[in-house]
């Protein structure tokens, strides 16, 4: 060792509390004086369906033959009050995403793929486009706080109406759509000036609490002569109370969206710090329905971070009647892909990602409207990067894969109907997941909070 040189350190210690992510956040706040707005969902690690595993059949349970025996996936929603409940071929639905956040091409692709797979798709803030109505066999029409584009004619054209109280990415917050995406058509549909940064209300304009909501739901039923199922969608927070109040308000179907749920644009602080994980929400929602003796009478749709067939199967096993997918659908369409497919050839998109300060695999820049693969954009050039035909093909493949995985798991658990999956088919890999899902920790009989 040279005594004149300071000793070389073996490692540099990064602060846990002030790591590079937090330093970057503070630098950014100091530079702009404004919170970050971004798209997609929570990025932090959370207890999730990956923390559960299925107990496949063996000697104590008898499996179904995976490739031959029938496994039913038919799903019926809205049996409580609606004259015309919805019957879907699969329990996997497309979540509400607006025309405005997505291009008209994408909305059409969602409708085509959903129709081919026998499932439903959903409008979003901003109303119903003719393209999506035409391409969707089963279309759920959202009634949101902003009421942008909401009108009785489209409500009557819908197959179900979803009253949106909140969403998992931002329970308690309203939506936003930044100026770049308020194209002339979007502005016209929403009755807004072109190019403004649109803020959506977080409270409905004409009702305030569950007693009012009961009357509002009755109004929607009167409007549609009691034909259409009425869904109520809540962001997962006080799930038990909210589900019970939604039942009290007269919902046919309740949608519970966990904190992993995505958004086209909201404050990062909302995405990462408000709401509870989907895994915890499912169990609380099912418990609430069971306590009211409403399980099977009011259907439960779970959303927020449903990505794989295993996620679908686990949600159903915990008691959901169906799931709803938003972000997974976007990824199936090519979100965050390095290439896009246009005019019969693949083209690199890396430069366009770089232009908005990101890269494939990291992009959450839906809010900018400069989606390099043409999904979350209103730009006439960019939106051509995803044709309805190509989008529909990929989405159909994705939904098909999920459904095959779902039925494979159900058969392995000895179930001839995916709705027969049950909590008893599951164990947890972590103490947290065991406590939230209320299934035993693998290899034990222990459910935290419920004794031995």
């Amino acid at each position, binding site marked *: 060792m040279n005594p004149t040189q300071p000793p070389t350190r073996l490692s540099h210690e990064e602060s846990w509390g002030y790591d590079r992510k937090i330093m970057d956040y503070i630098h950014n706040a100091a530079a*702009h004086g404004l919170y970050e707005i971004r798209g997609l969902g929570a990025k932090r690690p959370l207890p999730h369906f990956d923390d559960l595993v299925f107990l496949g059949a063996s000697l104590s349970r008898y499996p179904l033959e995976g490739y031959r025996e029938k496994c039913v996936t038919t799903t019926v929603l809205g049996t409580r009050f609606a004259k015309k409940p919805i019957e879907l071929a699969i329990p996997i639905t497309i979540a509400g995403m607006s025309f405005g956040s997505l291009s008209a091409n994408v909305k059409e692709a969602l409708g085509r793929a959903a129709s081919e797979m026998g499932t439903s798709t959903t409008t979003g803030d901003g109303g119903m486009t003719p393209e999506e109505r035409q391409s969707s066999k089963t279309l759920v029409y959202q009634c949101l706080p902003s*009421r942008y584009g909401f009108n*009785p*004619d489209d409500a009557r054209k819908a197959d179900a109406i979803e009253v949106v109280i909140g969403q998992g990415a931002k329970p308690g917050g309203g939506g936003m759509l930044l100026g770049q995406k308020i194209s002339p058509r979007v502005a016209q549909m929403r*009755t807004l000036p072109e190019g403004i*940064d649109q803020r959506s209300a977080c409270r409905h304009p004409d009702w305030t609490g569950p007693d009012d909501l009961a009357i509002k739901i009755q*109004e929607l039923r*009167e409007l549609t002569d009691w034909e259409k199922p009425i869904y109520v969608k809540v962001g997962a927070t006080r799930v038990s109370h909210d589900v019970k109040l939604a039942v009290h308000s007269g919902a046919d179907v309740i949608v519970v969206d966990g904190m992993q749920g995505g958004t086209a644009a909201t404050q990062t602080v909302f995405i990462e710090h408000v709401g509870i994980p989907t895994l915890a929400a499912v169990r609380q929602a099912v418990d609430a329905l069971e306590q009211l003796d409403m399980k099977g009478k009011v259907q439960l749709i779970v959303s927020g971070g449903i990505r794989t067939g295993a996620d679908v199967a686990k949600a159903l096993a915990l008691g959901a009647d169906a799931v709803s997918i938003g972000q997974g659908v976007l990824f199936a369409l090519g979100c965050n892909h390095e290439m896009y497919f246009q005019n019969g050839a693949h083209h690199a998109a890396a430069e366009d990602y770089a232009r908005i300060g990101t890269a494939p695999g990291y992009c959450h820049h839906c809010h900018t409207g400069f989606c390099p693969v043409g999904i979350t954009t209103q730009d006439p050039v960019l939106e051509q990067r995803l044709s309805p035909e190509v989008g529909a093909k990929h989405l159909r493949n994705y939904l098909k894969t999920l459904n095959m995985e779902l039925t494979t798991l159900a058969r392995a658990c000895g179930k001839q109907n995916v709705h027969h999956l049950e909590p008893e088919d599951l164990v947890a890999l972590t103490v947290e997941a065991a406590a939230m899902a209320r299934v035993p920790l693998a290899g034990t009989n222990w459910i935290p909070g419920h004794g031995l």
Partner: protein
Amino acid sequence: MDSLSFDLRTTPLREMNAFLHRHTDADPTREIAVLNPDGAHNIAVGLDVPLHVDIRGHAGYYAAGMNKLAHVTIHGNAGTGVAENMMSGVVRVKGFASNSAGASAHGGLLIVDGDASLRCGISLKGGDIVVGGSVGSFSGFMAQAGRMVVCGDAGEALGDSLYEAVIYVRGKIRSLGADAQIEPMQETDFQAVSELLAQAGLNFDPEEFKRVASARQLYHWNADANQEY
């Protein structure tokens, strides 16, 4: 003119509304009387024909909600959300209106002869509202398009976060909401007020009204606006 009446003490509301929805073949301009409404909710919701509906008494929530084409008169007071999301036609409340009168109305004309409570004209999207009396706080919140004429006073936070709707007030304004401002009346404003007052059958001098519209300072995300959003 042909006329027909429904007594809500003996006819279920659902049956009456379903009848009004199907009533497109007979004389679409016939008069319908609704007797003994007794504050029932959702009377004459979702009409789509130019019927004249007379509600002879007080109506509950969402009377004439999402109305198209029809002329609905409430001979009494109206509950929350009267004529909410109206598309066209005319709805008149002879008495007072509760919260959120004319909320998110896209078109048509709502007339309230008495006062209207909180959030009158919230999220207005192109409809016109004339209130003979005063309006409560948060009226015109986030109103996007359309016109409101208030012949009495306005409560707190009038026109908060306004977009392109315009509010005319004859009396006192307790306070303006974020981004709302009082602007000088132009010739087109006097005309608009005069025309709407005439449609409502109210006799006030347009010269007495003030114009409240958006200062458009919140149209783009602005770090210096702090708590205004």
